[in-house]
C-alpha cells in the first residue's frame, strides 16, 4: 500500500514537474509566436500607418496587394525566381559534392573543411565580399571572364543578371547541406551495397538502387530548409542591392521591411507577411504531399 501511494504521488509529482519545466517554452510559444501571429493577422486587416489612427479595412490590404500595389507581384516574382533557381541547383550541387567526397578519397576531411568554410563567413561580411567580387570594373569575376574573352558584365547592376548573381553567391554556401548529405551517406549500411555487388551491379546500380533511395529523406530535409530559407532571404539584398536595379532584386522580406520601417505602413506590411506565411506553408505542404512519390522511408537506418 505504502509503495502504491508513493507511486501515485510520484506520478502526480511528475505531471507537476513536467508542467513547470515546460512552462518557459509554453509561455514563449504564446508570447513570441501565437500572440504575434494573431496580432499580425488583426493588424493586417487595418490600414494602420505609424502616427495615424488605424481603420479596419477588412481584406482591403489583400485586394490592394493583388490589384494595385506596384511592388507585390514584382517581389513575389523575384523571390520565386531566386528560390526555384538557387534551391534546386544548390541541393543538387551539394549532393554531388557529398557523393564525390564519399568515394573514399584521401584527404576527405580537408576537402570537407574547404567546402564547409564559406558557410561560416558571417552574412554581412559575405555580402560585402561578393559586392567586391561582382564589381564591374575591378571585380574578380569579370577578371576571370576576361581570360575567356568574355566582356565585363554589370552583375548586380544589371536587371537580367542581378538574380543569377545572387544565386551564384548562394552556391558558395552549399557546405551546410553538403555536410548533412555526407553524414547521411555515411549512415547508409554497407550490406546494402554488398547486396548490389552480389547481384553483379556496377557503380551506377549502387547509386540508383541504394544511395538515391536511402538519401531521399535527406534530400527532402535539405529541400525544405532551402525553400524556407530562400523565401526569407534578406541580408544580401539589404547590403548589396537595396532591391535594385529597378526592383529587379526586390526580395519579399526586404519588401516587408521597407513597407514597415521605411514607408511606416505597418498594417499593409502585416498583410504582406501573412501572405508570405501562407505561401511558405502551401509550398511546404505540397513538398510533403509529394514525398510519397519519391521519398523512401526505411524503418531505421541506425
Amino acid at each position, binding site marked *: 500500500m505504502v509503495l502504491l501511494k508513493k507511486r501515485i504521488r510520484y506520478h502526480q509529482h511528475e505531471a507537476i514537474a513536467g508542467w513547470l519545466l515546460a512552462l518557459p517554452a509554453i509561455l514563449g510559444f504564446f508570447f513570441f509566436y501565437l500572440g504575434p501571429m494573431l496580432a499580425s493577422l488583426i493588424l493586417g486587416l487595418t490600414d494602420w500607418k505609424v502616427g495615424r489612427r488605424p481603420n479596419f479595412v477588412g481584406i482591403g490590404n489583400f485586394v490592394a496587394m493583388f490589384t494595385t500595389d506596384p511592388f507585390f507581384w514584382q517581389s513575389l516574382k523575384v523571390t520565386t525566381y531566386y528560390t526555384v533557381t538557387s534551391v534546386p541547383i544548390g541541393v543538387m550541387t551539394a549532393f554531388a559534392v557529398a557523393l564525390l567526397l564519399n568515394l573514399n578519397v584521401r584527404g576527405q576531411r580537408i576537402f570537407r573543411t574547404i567546402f564547409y568554410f564559406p558557410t561560416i563567413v558571417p552574412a554581412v*561580411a559575405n555580402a*560585402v565580399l561578393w559586392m567586391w567580387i561582382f564589381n564591374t570594373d*575591378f571585380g574578380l569575376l569579370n577578371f576571370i571572364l576576361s581570360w575567356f574573352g568574355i566582356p565585363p558584365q554589370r552583375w548586380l547592376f544589371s536587371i537580367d543578371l542581378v538574380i543569377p548573381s545572387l544565386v551564384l553567391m548562394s552556391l558558395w554556401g552549399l557546405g551546410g547541406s553538403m555536410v548533412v548529405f555526407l553524414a547521411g551517406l555515411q549512415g547508409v549500411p554497407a550490406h546494402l551495397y554488398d547486396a548490389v555487388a552480389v547481384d553483379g551491379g556496377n557503380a551506377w546500380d549502387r547509386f540508383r538502387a541504394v544511395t538515391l533511395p536511402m538519401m531521399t529523406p535527406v534530400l527532402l530535409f535539405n529541400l525544405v530548409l532551402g525553400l524556407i530559407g530562400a523565401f526569407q532571404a534578406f541580408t544580401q539584398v539589404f547590403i548589396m542591392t537595396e532591391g535594385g536595379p529597378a526592383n529587379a532584386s526586390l526580395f519579399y522580406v526586404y519588401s516587408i521591411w521597407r513597407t514597415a520601417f521605411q514607408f511606416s505602413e505597418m498594417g499593409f506590411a502585416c498583410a504582406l507577411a501573412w501572405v508570405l506565411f501562407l505561401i511558405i506553408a502551401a509550398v511546404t505542404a505540397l513538398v510533403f504531399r509529394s514525398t510519397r512519390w519519391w521519398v523512401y522511408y526505411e524503418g531505421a537506418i541506425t
Partner: protein
Amino acid sequence: MSTIAPVRISDSVRSLSERARVMHRRRPSTGNILAYVVLIGASAVFLTPLVWMVRSSFMSNFQILKFPPDWIPNPILWQNYPEALKALEFTRVVANTLRLVILNSLGIFITAPMSAYAFGRLRWPGRNLFWALILSTMMLPGAVTLIPTFLGWRALGAINTYYPLWVSSWFGGHAFNIFLLRQFFLTLPRELEEAAVMDGAGRLRILWTILVPLSKPAIVTIIIFDFLYRWNELLAPIIYLYSEPKFTLAMRLASFRGMYHAQFGYLMAASTVTVLPIIALYFAAQQYFVEGIALTGIKG
C-alpha cells in the same frame, strides 16, 4: 515531418565499411582519379573568394584598382587593418555583440534542457499538444511575427535596448534547440534516472547532475550555432537598435559598407576581422561544428 535523429553508425557497420574502404584503396580506379580532379578544381573555386578578400585587405586603393589585378599585394599594406578596426569601433561593437551572445546562450543553457526534459522524458497532460505546437514554430517564417513583436516591444518602451534581442531565448531557448536536445536525451538510458529517483533525487537534480553533463556535446553544439547566429544577425538589430553606440558588429559592418563604398581595401580588412573570430572558433571546436550538423542529419 520526417523525424530527425542523431546519425549513429553502429560499430559493426562501421568496421564493415571501413574494410570496404581499405579494399577500395588498393586499386585507385579511374573514377577516383576523376573525383580528385573535380574535387581539387572545386576546392580552388571555393577558396578563391577568401583569397581574394585577404589579398584585397592588404592593398592600397591604387593597387586594388589595377586591371588586370595582382594576386599578391606588392608592397603588403598593413595599414588597412588598424584603420578599419578604428573606423568600425571594433572593440565596442564586438563587446556589444558578445553581450548579446552571452545573454542568449545563458537563456538557452538554462531553459532549453528544462524544456527538452519536460517534453522528452516526463509524462504530463497536454505534453503532446504543446510539443506539436512548439515544433510547428520551426516552420514559421520570422517575417510574420516580426512587426507585431516589434510593436509589442515598442509598447513596453524597449526600443533601442537589447531586451528584444535576447529575452526570447529565456523562454525555452527556441524550438530547434529544444528539439536537438530532446533527441539527445532520448538516447540516454532511462535506468540512469530511475536509480536517482530511488535515491530520492528531485527532477531538477536529475536534469542538472545527470542528463545535462551527459549531453555536453549537444549543448556545446547548440551554443556554438547560437553564437554564429548572433554574429550574423542583421534584420532584428537594425529594427530594434538605432543609436550607434549600441550597434552590433554585423550592423556596423553593414553601415560601414555605405560609408566607404569605394574603398575596398578597407572593406575587405573589416570583413576579414569579422570572419577571423569565427575561423578561430571553428578550429577550436571543429568537432562540434561537424557533429552538430550530423546531429540534424535525418533518419527515415
